[in-house]
């Protein structure tokens, strides 16, 4: 259990050239890339297309699981609705598309938001596919995140595994007892399972805190320490490779 700290799938994760980069360089590189994408103004579709290409290329090198990316992209559905609303209700001048009058600036704005969100999802997927949670937590150190917050993120990742397993058990137990195909009943039993999950996990947190106090150890000192010991410091090559996407995006912004 203690050897698993935050990443049971570490062994299953594919080794890619990107996973060999130092995590702090990767996190900084991701933030820099997304900043450049975010400052791209609306109405420059070619710049965003180039950024998208860069993101996809990095994701390919990072051996991203594209099915997982597709799953994340469904989170964008409300944004598609928003973009359609922009196009229908935006200011003039309007353009005719398939016989419907659409607002040109609205179409541009909606498309830009959609494109930036998609690029963000692909880029973050590349980071997530090539780094374990402890590595990402370690990377946050370089971005200036204070230690207590990093420790909290690491502990949360650990607790998330425990709670997920427990939630699955509880949901199964409640479903077996109330078993009904109707979603209202399923939802009510899901809510009940969540309620008892809170009680159980808080009781366990109290036990953990008490046990640690009895031992005289500060609670949660280990995961962050393990995380920062996990990686070697970033060399110039790491930084060059990690910042390359941001540099390419900046070039695209200036040239295209």
């Amino acid at each position: 259990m203690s050897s698993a700290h935050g990443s049971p799938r570490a062994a299953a994760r594919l080794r890619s050239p990107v996973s060999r980069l130092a995590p702090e360089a990767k996190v900084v590189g991701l933030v820099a890339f997304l900043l450049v994408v975010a400052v791209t103004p609306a109405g420059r579709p070619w710049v965003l297309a180039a950024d998208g290409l860069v993101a996809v290329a990095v994701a390919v090198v990072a051996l991203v699981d594209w099915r997982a990316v597709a799953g994340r992209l469904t989170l964008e559905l409300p944004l598609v609705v928003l973009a359609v609303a922009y196009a229908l209700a935006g200011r003039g001048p309007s353009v005719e598309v398939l016989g419907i009058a659409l607002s040109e600036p609205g179409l541009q704005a909606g498309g830009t938001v959609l494109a930036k969100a998609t690029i963000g999802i692909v880029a973050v997927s590349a980071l997530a596919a090539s780094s374990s949670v402890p590595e990402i937590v370690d990377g946050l150190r370089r971005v200036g995140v204070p230690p207590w917050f990093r420790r909290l993120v690491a502990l949360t990742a650990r607790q998330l595994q425990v709670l997920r397993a427990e939630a699955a058990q509880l949901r199964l137990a409640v479903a077996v007892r109330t078993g009904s195909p109707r979603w209202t009943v399923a939802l009510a039993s899901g809510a009940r399972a969540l309620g008892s999950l809170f009680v159980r996990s808080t009781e366990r947190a109290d036990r953990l805190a008490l046990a640690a106090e009895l031992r005289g150890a500060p609670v949660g000192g280990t995961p962050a320490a393990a995380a920062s010991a996990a990686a070697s410091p970033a060399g110039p090559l790491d930084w060059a490779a990690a910042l390359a996407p941001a540099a390419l995006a900046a070039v695209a912004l200036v040239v295209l």
Partner: protein
Amino acid sequence: MHIPDGWVDLPTSAAAGAVALTGTALAARRSAAALRDRATTLPAVVAAYVLVAQLLVVPVGFGTSAHLVGTGLAALLVGPATAIVCVAVVVVVQALVLADGGVTALGLNLVNDGIVPALVAWGVFVAARPLVRSRRRGAAAAGGVAAGVASLAAAGAATLAFVAGGTDAVPAHVVAVSIGGSHLLLAAGEAALTAAVLATVLRLRPDMVRALPRRPDPAPEPVTVGDPA
């Protein structure tokens, strides 16, 4: 549903980031003072709990679904300060690991999903507390209402952010109506689910709901075994 990259301009993102940083730092200080005797595992447990709670999905129709956001619930369970710290962790994990929500919009998401709904839910519940008669059903219902109002307040904050720094290609009232309209549904779902979860916690361990004032400890009831007569 989190705010993605590029929804508002960079100055607005930066301003929201500053608000989020200050708010989280203040909340962390308050929460640390409140949790001094319970060490630091509770916020991690609550953050993980909120992430798991968000997996409970309600079908809304049209092939889309809504899920519990959980900030209001967390605020009622552990208090607004700890809840804000927990949601900060949740938002960071979602942006960096799950690719949900923009990295440059982190501050905005923290304000919208954390600071605003946590404070509003707590405020509404505290205001409604004198009206609550029964500690079980009444308190759960009031908690549901508080979470629903908090969800609407978050929608209002998102709209304000858009008016401040979104594209000017679309009239602001269109955005307000589209965000507000969809959030009416979401708020109703949030209210129902929060009330249901709270009802269970109140039945099992009412002392774990921080939003309720501690009752003076009643004398332990005598345990009767068998027939007392």
